């Protein structure tokens, strides 16, 4: 067997490991193993890459130093990545993923650019034409373009989620649709040109620049709260960019791994849109994220019952079954450990405590699960919407912590509501509802919540973490 065959075999093994890794992602225990196997697959692929013919030739010709340089570069990258991954707080996962994602996209762009640079140099030297390679010109152009969009889009998403001051206000230039259109036309023209002159470095980098512009102008107007959809979409793009790069350098492991990631991102995007009852086009080009807050005065006037921690503790005393409903506010307040302590205190007294997790609670799919798992809350207690909704009528107290839209009964009752039709957690059916938040201000959708004015609802206005800590103390005192 030739060395190329061995390398391809290694790539094949890596590809299969990646598929197994995704397959094992179906359960929290097996997922750990899946992640290991994914890493093993990656290691195999990277080592195999060091034995590719061009690398070996370079080794024979110039000695070890190019490979050493590669090793150093890889070590630097890996170290930076690992440190970021360990240091970044759990609440910032969406940002972290966005950032890593962007790097992957940029890498794909550079691979295509480097490949093109070398190829066109060779073509110039040997005077052999590149004319027949239309399909590969398309792949190269796509890689450059998608990579650039991914990188800049991810950076913007990162900025918005980190709430950097520059990104606070969604950018709503009146002519932005025209600007986007212009960039899109430029992309098409450049792409067409590049296919006609597939050895032109200039055209390629112009395409990358235009792509960068698109990445920014497309992402800037989207509200910070819609960023998770954008991140999943960009995640999918980074996979597709890798797959396209695989077409450029004729490498099946890039194609397979890239398309797996592409599929994963697309599925997550679709699931999220569905759970928010919005269309992808609406998220990307509509403006729900930018709607001015509707006044809730008529809804709330005179009907709000504000209570103290001690009063809630008294209500909880008689409760046999308590359901905790976390939302985005829990992540903001970083109240997950406090919640855990409250649940422990309640359970010590014989109360059953469960958690109701809405699919789009928080700002990222599975956001709440990760947060609560961080606080060592057992996986089995986190129950999904369809599973727990029927049990609310038998629930004594539902404690809503920093959640708003996902418990808004208007989605069910008011067909004119912007979130009409979105499936929600039916907390209003519980005997008593306790809502912990700082004010009456709306959540992501910017609409008032009739739940707060309901007869069986008690409002407890405070920062999430402080509120829960006080409540725990009050419960323990009783």
């Amino acid at each position, binding site marked *: 067997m030739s060395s190329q065959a061995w390398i391809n075999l290694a790539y094949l093994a890596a590809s299969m490991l990646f598929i197994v890794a995704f397959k094992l*992602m179906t359960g929290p225990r097996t997922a750990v193993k899946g992640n290991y196997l994914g890493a093993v697959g*990656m290691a195999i692929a990277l080592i195999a890459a060091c034995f590719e013919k061009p690398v070996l*030739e370079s080794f024979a*010709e110039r000695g070890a130093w190019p490979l050493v340089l590669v090793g150093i570069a890889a070590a630097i*990258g890996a170290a930076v990545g690992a440190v970021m991954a360990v240091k970044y707080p759990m609440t910032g996962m969406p940002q972290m*993923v966005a950032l890593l994602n962007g790097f992957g996209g940029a890498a794909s762009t550079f691979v295509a650019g480097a490949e093109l640079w070398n190829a066109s140099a060779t073509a110039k030297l040997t005077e052999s034409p590149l004319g027949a390679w239309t399909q590969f010109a398309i792949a190269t152009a796509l890689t450059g373009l998608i990579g650039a969009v991914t990188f800049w889009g991810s950076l913007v998403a990162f900025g918005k989620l980190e709430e950097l001051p520059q990104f606070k206000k969604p950018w709503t230039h009146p002519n932005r649709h025209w600007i986007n259109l212009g960039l899109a036309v430029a992309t098409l023209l450049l792409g067409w040109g590049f296919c006609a002159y597939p050895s032109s470095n200039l055209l390629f980098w112009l395409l990358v620049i235009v792509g960068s512009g698109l990445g920014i102008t497309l992402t800037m107007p989207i509200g910070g709260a819609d960023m998770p959809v954008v991140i999943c979409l960009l995640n999918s793009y980074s996979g597709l960019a890798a797959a396209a790069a695989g077409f450029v350098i004729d490498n099946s492991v890039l194609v397979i791994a890239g398309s797996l990631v592409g599929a994963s991102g697309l599925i997550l995007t679709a699931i999220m849109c569905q759970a928010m009852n919005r269309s992808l086009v609406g998220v990307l080009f509509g403006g729900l994220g930018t709607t001015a807050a509707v006044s809730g005065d008529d809804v709330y006037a005179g009907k709000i019952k504000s209570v103290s921690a001690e009063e809630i503790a008294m209500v909880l005393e008689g409760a046999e079954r308590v359901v905790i409903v976390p939302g985005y506010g829990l992540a903001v307040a970083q109240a997950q450990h406090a919640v855990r302590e409250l649940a422990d205190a309640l359970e010590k007294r014989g109360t059953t405590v469960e958690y109701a997790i809405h699919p789009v609670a928080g700002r990222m799919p599975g956001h709440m699960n990760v947060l609560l798992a961080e606080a*060592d809350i057992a996986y089995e207690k986190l129950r999904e919407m369809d599973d727990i909704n029927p049990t609310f009528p038998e629930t004594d107290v539902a404690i809503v912590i920093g959640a708003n839209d996902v418990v808004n009964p208007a989605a069910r009752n008011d067909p004119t509501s912007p979130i009409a039709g979105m499936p929600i957690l039916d907390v209003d059916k519980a005997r008593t509802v306790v809502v912990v938040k700082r004010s009456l201000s709306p959540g992501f959708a910017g609409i008032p919540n009739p739940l707060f004015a309901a007869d069986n609802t008690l409002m407890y206005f405070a920062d999430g973490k402080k509120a829960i800590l006080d409540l725990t103390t009050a419960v323990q005192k009783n």
Partner: protein
Amino acid sequence: MTTPLFAILLADAVAAPEDPAAKFIRLLTVFLLAMWVGFEVITKVPQRLHTPLTSGSNAISGITAVGAIVVAGAVATAGYRFGNLLGLLAVVLAMVNVAGGFVVTHRMLEMFQPKKK
């Protein structure tokens, strides 16, 4: 007897062992099959693991490091070292993605494990 059409097709077919278009279709086959596997497998991942799924798939998208290593380590025609430099940059970026992705996924998944108190 030989019709012109067949003659052309024939000449085409005899020409090269694998021409670029055939190669493209071969890769397209792999792409479509892998996409399909991806869709089937990933629709089975439960909602609660979607965040680790995102970061894990993110790590795997760093596979572009393979391409980066090859272009970074390849022989550069004298005077055209720019390609290698780009490659090195790509290696750094892709490795941040790979290492960061796997480590952060592991960190998250560890949290899902039942722990002894």
